[in-house]
């Protein structure tokens, strides 16, 4: 899979890799690897399978450090229920780390407060500081950094991956994603103040907003009001396991945001719900097309600053693609973190049963590193 050793990185536009992690590791892994495994832990049991797979597959590597971002959201209306579930998930995760083997092993479990009392997100700063104070000191020594995105709040995930991307531009970076074969509905309620992840645009900059949509229509509206974009190019999931999901999103939005803000349906783009590299390509195309268009049409309308802002209001796979595009193209993300999550107890228990049986294998996505080095 290694194409060369030049320092120049190609984006995963034409060449990329994703597949079951166990199959991948059989051909990739070996004893000398020094691994940093990062995961988020909260009320969602989907954090369990990736760690279980890592314990099973990575038992003979030279170094295995784990960094668990254990997030606490005291603003959650369902704090008591979600905290209880977090404790249950943590017990499983801790047991797995106790059973791990490697020549060198260290586990960091870091609590991160998502919000302050004023509902401002503070978790992104906390996670970055704690990361630097723990495994960040040895970041250059790892051959591979693997991030399980399955239960990681996006604001923390984006911040941490961006941070790693900047500090370790040449290293292998993988994402793992576990998806359960049952429908998991997590209702979001409320959200914190929208904020930029990355450099905020200049005050007078025109904003072309590319939101990747899911069911979070309310947050879509909030972000629109915050950004006040001059144009919106929404991306909806298609194909997807439920082929109508994209249509449903458009129908929901049609009676609200699309209609009121006159977003023409011709602006709507589609990207695979299950392949982050697809939405990555779509976003890269938007950015590259815009560059060409601006070069060819420089004039009174397009002489002003223009920024492309992206938002991930979608499932985790699409969100990963958005992040990847933002990292490669230097795009700024705009995000609003939900403050409350509601998960039915039955769904939680079904999910926990599935995730704790060591049957689900996460998909690995190779985000950066050896695969994308040019042949020179």
């Amino acid at each position: 899979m290694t194409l060369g050793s030049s320092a120049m990185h190609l984006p995963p536009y034409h060449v990329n890799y994703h597949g079951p992690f166990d199959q991948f590791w059989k051909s990739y892994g070996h004893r000398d690897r020094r691994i940093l495994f990062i995961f988020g832990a909260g009320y969602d049991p989907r954090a369990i399978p990736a760690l279980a797979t890592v314990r099973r597959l990575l038992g003979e590597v030279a170094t295995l450090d784990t960094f668990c971002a254990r997030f606490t959201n005291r603003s959650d209306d369902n704090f008591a229920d979600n905290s209880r579930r977090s404790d249950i998930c943590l017990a499983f995760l801790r047991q797995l780390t106790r059973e791990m083997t490697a020549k060198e092993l260290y586990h960091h479990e870091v609590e991160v407060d998502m919000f302050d009392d004023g509902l401002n997100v503070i978790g992104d700063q906390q996670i970055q500081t704690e990361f630097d104070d723990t495994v960040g000191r040895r970041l250059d020594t790892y051959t591979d950094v693997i991030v399980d995105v399955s239960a990681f709040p996006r604001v923390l995930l984006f911040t941490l991956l961006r941070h790693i991307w900047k500090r370790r531009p040449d290293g292998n970076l993988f994402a793992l994603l576990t998806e359960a074969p049952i429908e998991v509905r997590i209702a979001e309620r409320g959200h914190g103040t929208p904020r930029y992840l990355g450099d905020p645009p200049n005050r007078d900059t025109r904003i072309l907003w590319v939101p990747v949509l899911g069911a979070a229509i309310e947050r879509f509206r909030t972000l629109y009001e915050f950004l006040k974009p001059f144009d919106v190019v929404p991306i909806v999931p298609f194909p997807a396991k439920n082929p109508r999901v994209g249509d449903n999103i458009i129908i929901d939005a049609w009676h609200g945001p699309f209609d009121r803000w006159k977003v023409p349906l011709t602006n709507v783009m589609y990207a695979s719900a299950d392949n982050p590299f697809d939405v990555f390509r779509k976003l890269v195309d938007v950015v590259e097309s815009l560059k060409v268009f601006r070069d060819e049409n420089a004039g009174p309308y397009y002489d002003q600053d223009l920024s492309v802002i992206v938002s991930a209001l979608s499932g985790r796979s699409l969100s990963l693609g958005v992040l990847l595009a933002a990292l490669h193209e230097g795009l700024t993300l705009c995000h609003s973190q939900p403050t409350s999550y509601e998960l039915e107890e039955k769904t939680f228990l079904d999910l926990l049963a599935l995730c704790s049986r060591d049957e689900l294998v996460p998909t690995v996505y190779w985000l950066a590193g050896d695969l994308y080095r040019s042949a020179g």
Partner: protein
Amino acid sequence: MNRLSRRDPVARLLPPGPDGWNVLGSGFVALDLVHEVAANGDANLDRVAYLGGGTASNILCHLSRFGWQTAIVGAIGDDETSVRLRSDLQAFGVDTATLVPRPGRRTTTIVHGVQTRGPDRGRHTFGRSCLACSEMLRSDAEPLEPAEIESLTAAINDRTLLIVDRANPLTNMLADKVRQQGGVVVFEPGHIKAADENVTRLIANAQLLKFSDHLTVGGIPFRETPICRTNGPDMLIETRSTEGVRVLFPEHREIRLRVPSHRRPLDSAGAGDAFTAALVAVIGPEGLRNLAALEIRTLEAAILIAQVVGGLATLFLGAKGIAYDRSVENLVDAVRAVLTTGEPPAGFAPNDLEIAHFFEPVVANGDSKCSVCGTRKAPHA
């Protein structure tokens, strides 16, 4: 905000001391002489507070109030300072019979200055010489002899909890004896001059090593020094002020917990001592004896309560000011309030009058002694 529902498996926030257990403290025993400092930096020499001090002593005072049997072991002078020191510790119920007086010798005094008003409210400075007479207030009492330690500690058994804040031959001898008898050793170093054999030996003997992120050895943060990695303790706890607490386990694992902090501390001295006392009280001696087997959830609950107690202590003047001014019941109510609402109850923090009354007027001591520190003036002074 409701943190209690998540992590509080203990029925009582600060359980009373268990029957049959006795707590011994040893290490740095001193009298704290506290001055109020004005916004311009001038200390008020007309009003002072005299308080028993030293980390181990402070922890014992808190534990005594929680209902534990406690005693302090060491050698002090037989001066006026020693009388004040004993009186203060005894007021909390700490047994001072094992504090051996050295005739004609002086007891250590630490001079504190605390700003109670202005933009630097809460700023705390330390010194070793009297602000009134400039006399250096170091102890010249000879340390305990091994034979004395033997006779003083004959009652050490498997229900002895030793709390130590300095590593020296005396505290190591005590720790050896406590561990031989099956008791529990907690080491909370407030100061480490150098990484010598005494330090590593005491760390190796301790079940719990607790320290602050301000602790340094030779300018290096203690947690980054090799001695911090000395095998022995079942658990290391580093308090990180408003950043929370870091817990290190020998099994190559660390946990960092976030905890509530207070916005307007009055005096941060002694927060760590209050933390340790609360931690010991909640975990209990049997929990300390079996730290490796303690459920992390139980540990987290204990740390959370301890951190809240430490935070509440910073609202008061002096290293154990909270223990003078508020009952244990008041404290428990305040802990519960912080855990459920994020804030202590109205009126829990001391008001201006209480702060003013913390200091007492200096009483003239005659021409031969300094009115503030009580040391005998030199004939030519």
